[in-house]
């Protein structure tokens, strides 16, 4: 009697399962973040992109966000679990996830992996990145215009190409507004260290910087700039709440359009491994909360360059460009290719303390 009951139950489950798989099953998409979303910064900007994608596709996709996934064994274990739970598209958003993604991807060839900001690819591993340097250049132009001391402070994390590109683009932008501007960089050798960020900021202000920007995670810099009454240029997500009076502009990451385009490809069966690098053309990097004190002539200037960047008639790294050692890196009208940008390890003239 009991056995019969179980049989019915089993059949019922089987029918339910078959019915579910015949009906259009939603695409399961997973997102891995290294830091908690609420800590702000990089992971938060990805989370906003995930929410954008959910709005865009509705019940065609199911998404899951996993926070605090540290590089190493944690990442590997998480990726394997996701693959076993039939997640078909997995976004690993931290640079540190790279090697785990490459290892796990080999065992699950049917699953598409996307790794943000990395440089390794495979048949089922693509990379995606934001051309944040475009936003950096535009913000640099505003900063160069607003600086009266002609000194801009830059609190930087690690001297890796991504950060170096940002510093160079920002410097070129600032010099486009005012050729005499110098950028003073301080490396704190950490992505997230509120106290160091604050000390470095105060030091830069004391050395005469009147605009401060950063490539770090916490809002400590914005708070310190607000206290000292100098301009602050935010990065990653709108940071105006931390410096109501001193916030000049934020260079925001907007992952939504990128996620939408990758997920659409996957849904339509067109996904393939690529190295995607989107900029202002997809609105992936954009300036938000620009201070009302910025003159409108600058704003229209910025908008014009932005349009030119979007239709690829404007190149940030266009010669003549001299590096800090005085060497000519780019001759007249020469430009840098993407491969050179990805491995960039030199600084343009005007940067002080370039490692």
């Amino acid at each position, binding site marked *: 009697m009991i056995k019969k009951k179980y049989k019915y139950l089993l059949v019922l489950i089987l029918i339910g399962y078959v019915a579910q798989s015949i009906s259009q099953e939603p695409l399961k998409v997973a997102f891995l973040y290294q830091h*908690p979303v*609420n*800590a*702000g910064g990089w992971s938060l900007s990805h989370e906003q992109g995930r929410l954008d994608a959910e709005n865009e596709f509705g019940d065609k996709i199911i998404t899951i966000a996993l926070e605090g996934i540290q590089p190493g064994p944690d990442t590997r274990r998480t990726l394997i679990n996701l693959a076993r739970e039939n997640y078909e598209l997995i976004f690993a958003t931290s640079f540190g996830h790279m090697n785990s993604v490459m290892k796990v991807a080999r065992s699950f060839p049917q699953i598409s992996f996307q790794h943000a900001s990395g440089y390794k690819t495979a048949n089922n591993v693509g990379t995606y990145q934001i051309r944040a340097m475009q936003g950096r250049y535009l913000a640099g132009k505003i900063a160069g215009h607003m600086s009266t001391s002609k000194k801009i*402070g830059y609190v930087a994390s690690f*001297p890796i190409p991504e950060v170096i590109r940002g510093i160079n683009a920002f410097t070129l932008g600032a010099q486009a507004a005012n050729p005499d501007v110098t950028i*003073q*960089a*301080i*490396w*704190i*050798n*950490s992505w*997230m*260290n*509120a*106290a*160091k*960020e*604050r*000390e*470095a900021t*105060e*030091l*830069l202000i*004391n*050395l005469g910087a009147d605009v401060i920007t950063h490539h770090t*995670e*916490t*809002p*400590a810099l914005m*708070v310190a700039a607000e*206290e000292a009454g100098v301009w602050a240029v935010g990065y990653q997500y709108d940071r105006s*709440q*931390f410096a109501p009076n001193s916030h000049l502009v934020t260079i925001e990451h907007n992952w939504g359009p990128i996620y939408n385009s990758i997920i659409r490809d996957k849904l339509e069966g067109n996904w393939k491994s690529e190295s995607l690098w989107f900029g202002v053309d997809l609105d992936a990097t954009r300036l938000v909360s620009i201070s009302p004190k910025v003159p409108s002539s600058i704003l229209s200037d910025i908008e014009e360059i932005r349009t030119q960047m979007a239709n690829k008639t404007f190149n940030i790294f266009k010669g003549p460009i001299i590096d800090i050692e005085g060497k000519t890196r780019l001759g007249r009208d020469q430009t840098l290719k993407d491969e050179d940008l990805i491995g960039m390890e030199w600084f343009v003239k005007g940067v*002080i*303390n370039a*490692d």
Partner: protein
Amino acid sequence: MDIYLIEAMITAVIRSATPLLLLGLGIIISERAGILNLGQEGMLTCGAVASFLTMLATGSFPISILAAVAAGMILSSVFITPVLILHTNQVATGLALTILGLGIAALAGNPYAGETITAYQVISLPEFMSSPILRAILEHDPIVYLSWIIAIGVTFFLRSSSSSILIACGHAPRVATILGHNVIKIQALATLFGGAMAGLAGAYLALSFTPIWSESIGAGRGWIALALVVFASRQVGRLLLGAIIFGSTDILQLLLQAIGLSMSSHILAASPYLVTIAALVLLSRQNNLNPKLREPRSLGQPNI
């Protein structure tokens, strides 16, 4: 270098030395009593989150400081209960406390990561003492003054006769028991004091240093303080020296970068640790000869 830069540097050094000093004072007292509590980082972070959340809720600095001290003491009682009653391994229990504290702090602080509070304002000196250097040394917020008062208090306590009971607990707890002292009570009180100091250091970080909440707020200071205390052979004066050397090398390396010294930032970033260790190792050469500077013999040992 102009005078305002020097002023800013001195202020910055004192600011980064204060949490180390507070943590170190607590560690000195508990280690003198023979208790090795490696949970400093956890207590520090919990103190920081407790004071930050209390500040958001009440807007009162004294209440926030008390909340941080209470948080540190509660966590240290979580440590001391198994250690003194069940005689668990102090190293393992301390490490567990660090993990627990960091976890609690992350959980409690998570929803408030975007909030800001107004920082503790410095107390201005009277007009006639307005020389920049003097101002940099003397003009701070109340927690810094509190740390100085506690440092003086601990120094005098360690010189007083009553401290010999504490030190006896650290060197020979059985002898202290035979002499009629309640070793468990003394060790518990010493550890609670350590917890209170770690909480206070956390309050300083969250209320004065960086008035935001970030999980990285401790940034390894608990571990640095533990190392400083060892190298300072549990002496307040040497601890202060170590904290100042560490703080100033830390600030100096940022300054050297900013003025454009062409040196690898990685070497500069390591310099505070190298310089501090070198200085304190030189100081502690004589340790084994001087009985006053010797490590408490029962440090970290269960008292059975």
